[in-house]
């Protein structure tokens, strides 16, 4: 059985295992170093339990546990406020029309503007899972449990949710957008820059990023082609998020030009479909498989369950599922179809 729950200090090694197997784009929100990851877990626990230090931003980290083995097989996160109190950097792709009436010529000139417009929106992040689970129900559970958490803790989050999708990277690790732009200014390779961007202080981006807008036409062709394109490995994630209601807007990652997806929180599929209902026992283990969650803050749990019956205000679910969720009859749960 798959269970999503808040990350705990004991998950450290399992998470490090998973983080190490991920592409570099992840490292900005999921540290690969023990110290950094350990404090991230501590911060997450404080966030779940509402015991944050003064001014400490809320950052939540979830794990996907295989309950048969107790082993963690995936991790996902939410930053309540993108940027965590600092600017959240993106490029905003926009077009200017350069036209000469007299000469009768008109050209669409694409420009990348440095932007912080997504700062303070809720950010889905830190998603990593064992590659053999990609595209399975467990994968969907790990990702969407976050939406259920948002639904059941709505006041902690903003009206808009964003998520960065890894951009184009060649098989030998080259990032065309970085090579054409960022490399010249940061004077380091993509992986190094990406790791630094996981640090709390984004001062180095303010210091090193080109201060003026960038003309797309001056980028290499490979970089132009990569604008707003997701990495092929992210396809399952991308599709899942689209089904959830996320759409690519005009924002791009400053390092690899991957797309930033946006959605209105209250229009997220998981939020719309998962009204709170009272938990009751079903006499059968049959039913369509659904996502279910329950529990407040640090007690939040989410899992997959066959749904025996769903009425207006109550659901009937096998008591086996109750155990995983740590709930009992009469408790409030949220259910959403796969």
């Amino acid at each position: 059985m798959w269970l999503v729950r808040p990350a705990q200090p004991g998950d450290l090694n399992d998470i490090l295992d998973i983080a190490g197997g991920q592409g570099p784009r992840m490292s900005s929100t999921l540290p690969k170093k023990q110290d950094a990851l350990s404090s991230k877990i501590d911060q997450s626990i404080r966030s779940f339990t509402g015991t944050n230090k003064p001014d400490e931003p809320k950052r939540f980290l979830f794990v996907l546990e295989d309950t048969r083995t107790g082993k963690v097989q995936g991790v996902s996160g939410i930053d309540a406020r993108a940027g965590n109190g600092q600017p959240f950097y993106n490029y905003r792709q926009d077009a200017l029309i350069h036209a000469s009436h007299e000469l009768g010529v008109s050209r669409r000139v694409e420009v990348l503007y440095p932007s912080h417009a997504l700062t303070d929106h809720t950010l889905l992040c830190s998603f990593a899972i064992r590659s053999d689970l990609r595209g399975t129900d467990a994968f969907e559970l790990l990702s969407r449990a976050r939406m259920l958490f948002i639904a059941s803790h709505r006041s902690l989050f903003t009206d808009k949710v964003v998520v960065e999708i890894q951009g184009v990277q060649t098989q030998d690790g080259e990032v065309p957008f970085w090579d054409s732009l960022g490399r010249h200014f940061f004077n380091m390779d993509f992986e190094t820059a990406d790791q630094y961007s996981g640090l709390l202080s984004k001062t180095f981006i303010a210091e090193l990023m080109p201060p003026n807008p960038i003309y797309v036409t001056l980028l290499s062709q490979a970089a132009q082609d990569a604008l707003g394109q997701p990495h092929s490995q992210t396809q399952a994630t991308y599709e899942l998020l689209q089904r959830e209601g996320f759409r690519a807007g005009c924002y791009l990652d400053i390092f690899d030009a991957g797309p930033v997806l946006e959605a209105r929180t209250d229009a997220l599929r998981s939020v719309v479909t998962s009204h709170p209902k009272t938990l009751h026992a079903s006499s059968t283990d049959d039913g369509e498989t659904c996502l279910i969650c329950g529990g407040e803050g640090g007690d939040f749990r989410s899992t997959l369950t066959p749904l025996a019956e769903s009425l207006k205000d109550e659901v009937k679910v096998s008591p086996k599922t109750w155990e995983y969720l740590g709930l009992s009859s009469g408790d409030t749960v949220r259910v959403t179809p796969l």
Partner: protein
Amino acid sequence: MLVIRPLQENDLDALYAMAQGAGKGLTTLPADRALLARKIQHARETFNQRCAPEAGLYLFALEDTELKRCVGISGIQARVGLDEVFYNYRLSVTVNASRELDVHVRTPTLHLSNDMTGTTEVCSLLLSSSHRGGGTGLLLSRCRFMFLDDFRSHFSEKVFAEMRGVSDSNGQSPLWDALGSKFFDMEFSEADMLSGLGNKSFIAELMPKYPIYLPMLPDAARAVIGRVHENTEPALKMLQAEGFNFNGMVDIFDGGPAVEAFIHSIRTVREGINRHVMIRKKPLVTDVPAEQQVMISNRSFRDFRVTTIPAECIGLDTVSIPADVAEALEVESGDLVRLAPLKDTGRR
């Protein structure tokens, strides 16, 4: 005798022929009869002080008095950018540094600039191929500095010249190919011509307004920024010898450099001296090497004349010149004339 004088209406044919021969390098004098006629008209009004000083366009003809024909031309525009907008790129540097990460990067950057607006430009130098060599080009170019010196109130303190940038034998400019062509739907030659015609609103409309970071351009384009076309190297050397320096401004199309100098520090100005004319009867060997010649100007605004004489004519207070030279200069005994060496003598 070769004499500098203001350009006249009847020089049009000669001017047109020279403009045709010049090819695409000289954008301020395109081979367009109507336009050239207007330029001459403008110059006439300038010398006759019938136009505002800041709108002045001074065009000087080099007349071969035997051929009775204009064989060269050079010009001064009193102030650029008043009628149209004058654009350059300023070659600047953007520094990004992070002490924390021990990174320090300097990025050469082109900023679109109008900072030359209101400055005096020396421009439009053309010389018939039949008359090249022997210091004739020097006379045609440097006579302008004598004029600038004598009539400083009509000009800005600084004067500059734009030098033709690098292009290949097909007229392709590496900077244009990498930058301009991405924004202008036309060939370099067409943009250059349009710009020369003085209608620059298309630049405001089509030009990128944000700075251009040079590392984003290909090597071939970066290499030509601030460099001159090989045909222009002699002209650049001449101006450098006069005291002109690269001022960080480059042409927005081909990346050719602008060079500038304070009028008071131009060599022709610094080395200029005044003498009273004495008409000499003694015969004079005028056919001396360029190194031994000096330019002599009559210091007239309206009827400016310059020719060259041997340096030996210069005395302590006077300069003794043959009657035909005096006639060509329209001066008489006792008139004050200005003298300056024709060629770089190596003194500083």
